[in-house]
């Protein structure tokens, strides 16, 4: 069996994900709002409104406190000398192998929330695909980026 990658993401990343998920959950308000609006036009009972609100709250709660946590705890990466391996996902577990010789460029990027927590995302691009390691501490991300860039440069193209 191929050993699984063992490097986790930064702990603060979970916090960022929770915030992002909570913010995007606000969009779900559209469903009860739509029903509330529909009641002005059609004669609809009140109780489904509360059911909808309850379901949305429950879903948001599960998403924020359980799924994000699982997602975070499942996320693993490992940088070998000749390849990068990623493994992540809750319902669908994905495992990716990117050889160093196929890496075309590697970037770090930050959104406003990541920046607030001094985190950054490392993006690895090949000629055909792009992969992300989301949420590492800034210094870790920077050194990882430089490390991968160095390894990619050194990788033997004749292999």
């Amino acid at each position, binding site marked *: *069996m*191929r*050993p699984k990658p063992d490097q986790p993401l930064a702990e603060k990343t979970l916090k960022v994900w929770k915030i992002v998920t909570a913010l995007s959950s606000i969009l779900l308000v559209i469903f009860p709002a739509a029903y509330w609006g529909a009641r002005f036009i059609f004669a609809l009972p009140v109780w489904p409104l509360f059911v909808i609100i309850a379901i949305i709250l429950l879903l948001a709660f599960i998403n924020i406190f359980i799924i994000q946590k699982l997602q975070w705890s499942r996320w693993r990466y490992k940088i*070998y*000398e*000749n*390849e990068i391996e990623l493994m992540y*996902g809750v*319902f*669908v*577990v*994905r*495992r*990716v*192998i*990117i*050889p*160093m*010789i*196929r890496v075309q460029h590697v970037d770090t990027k930050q959104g406003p929330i990541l920046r607030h927590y001094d985190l950054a995302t490392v993006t690895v691009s*090949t*000629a*055909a*695909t792009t*992969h992300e390691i989301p949420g590492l501490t800034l210094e870790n991300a920077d050194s990882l980026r430089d490390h991968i860039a160095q390894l990619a440069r050194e990788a033997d193209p004749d*292999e």
Partner: protein
Amino acid sequence: MNEWKRQHPAAIFISFLSNLKQMIITLIAVFIFGQSSQAASPIFYLLFFAAILLFSVGNGFISWWKFHYFLKEDELQIKQGLIFRKNRFIRKDRIQSIDINAKLIQRMFGLVEVRIETAGGGSEPEFRIVALKKQEALAIKKHLLTKYERPTVHATELDEDEGFLAEQGETNSTLNPLNDELKADTANDSVNAEGIEEVEFDEEDTPPDFEWALGSKRLIIAALTSSGVGIAATFIAAIVSQAPQFLPEWLFDQLIGWFIHSSILVLGGMLVSILFAAWLFTLIGTILKYGYFTLTKRENDIHISRGVLEQRQLTLNAKRITAVRIVQTPIRQMFNYVSIYVESAGGGTKEEDLSTILTPLCKRKEIQGILDEIVPEFSFIPEYEGLPKESLRRYMIKLIVPSLIIAGVATYFIPYGWIAFLLPALGGGLGYIQYRSAGISQVEDFLCIKSRVIAKTEVFLPKRRIQDVESSQNVLQKLDNLYTIHVAVLTSMVGKTFSLRHISGEQIERGYLWYSYEQRLREQTKKTSADHEES
């Protein structure tokens, strides 16, 4: 030839037509909206239409007037644009391939289009000069493909280029009489046809290393079997026309009554005629598209030339081919015919899903011979390993469940809807066939995967072309320790991912092992798996 030149004035018309094509959509929108508002008079529309026509002509004229090209020693320079000026320098050593096409519109004027493909990305990897006399186009091609004199250039490369040119001349002459005519014309009135003369000289000098043509018999077969929908349509039409003879009279009467009652006959008739028309279109389309199909190879250049009305040529470098795909639709499988596609970094046309058709139709046993000549490293017969029996239910359930739901809904809402319960049975059968068709194999440095949606597809992927390997496992697959493998390669300018669903844990491990570049990890993996087997 050392001055700025314009294209043939017919470029005005060509650009006008292509402008018009884009504007037709706008026009339709305007007319639709125009009908709802009653304020505007018909004169307004007339004016509007005239303005658009005028604008198109003007635009075409300006784009011709302001388009200059200049063939310099080591590059092609292009100046274009009236308000937004664009200068483009295409360096010789960056040119991937040059193709000379004659589309319908160009042929009306006896002209050709030159398509230059450059290396590297950028937003415009290819460049077109839409209207040129054939001799001029050939001269440009020859000029650009003759390497700029530099001490580092190898003599062989020069030869290659020469061969490339010759190929151009030859495919044209062998291929189609219309083009011959065109060539004869240009030869007659050519004053300084130095390019052509040399081309013809080369033509006799170097025959192609390999040549393959889709004969007219194959073309007809390809056209007849081109589309599953088409076949279905003919089939349905045949059944409908034959059915009354075989049905007992009482049933026939009852059916007719029912048909008339529900006016399904009308609908069915419409459906059949639509399908038939679709079949006819695909038939004619295929003949026009693949008529005069020839495939030639000279050194590393693969040259494809095809088309009856629109002659298309495509040059690919054999070294840039990233994958070979062998596709077999069920109807072609019955007659043991296949088509071969290649994925190539650069080249490739949009209409073929970004990959290039190498052979529209050939017998399965011919694949080997063709690949041997065109891309020898891809020429092998892999022995596929089937999928574990656990994956059979994944394939079947995936198709049965949705069709059961459809059948349930149909039964509830539509009279005779229970007939839809045939769907789950069909789905199950298809799932079983998909499972039987799927397979994976590693042949030295190649990963081969075989799968089927409806048509059976085999893909050969060389390790050094694979950009990354990914496995995924969903919750249901986890129950049976199954994985899906995804393999990405570069095609044209974007990536393409090939997948095989529901392979076993052991197979995915072997996949990792095969692909991994980490020597230490490979040894470790081998050791642990050996230990695993012992215990």
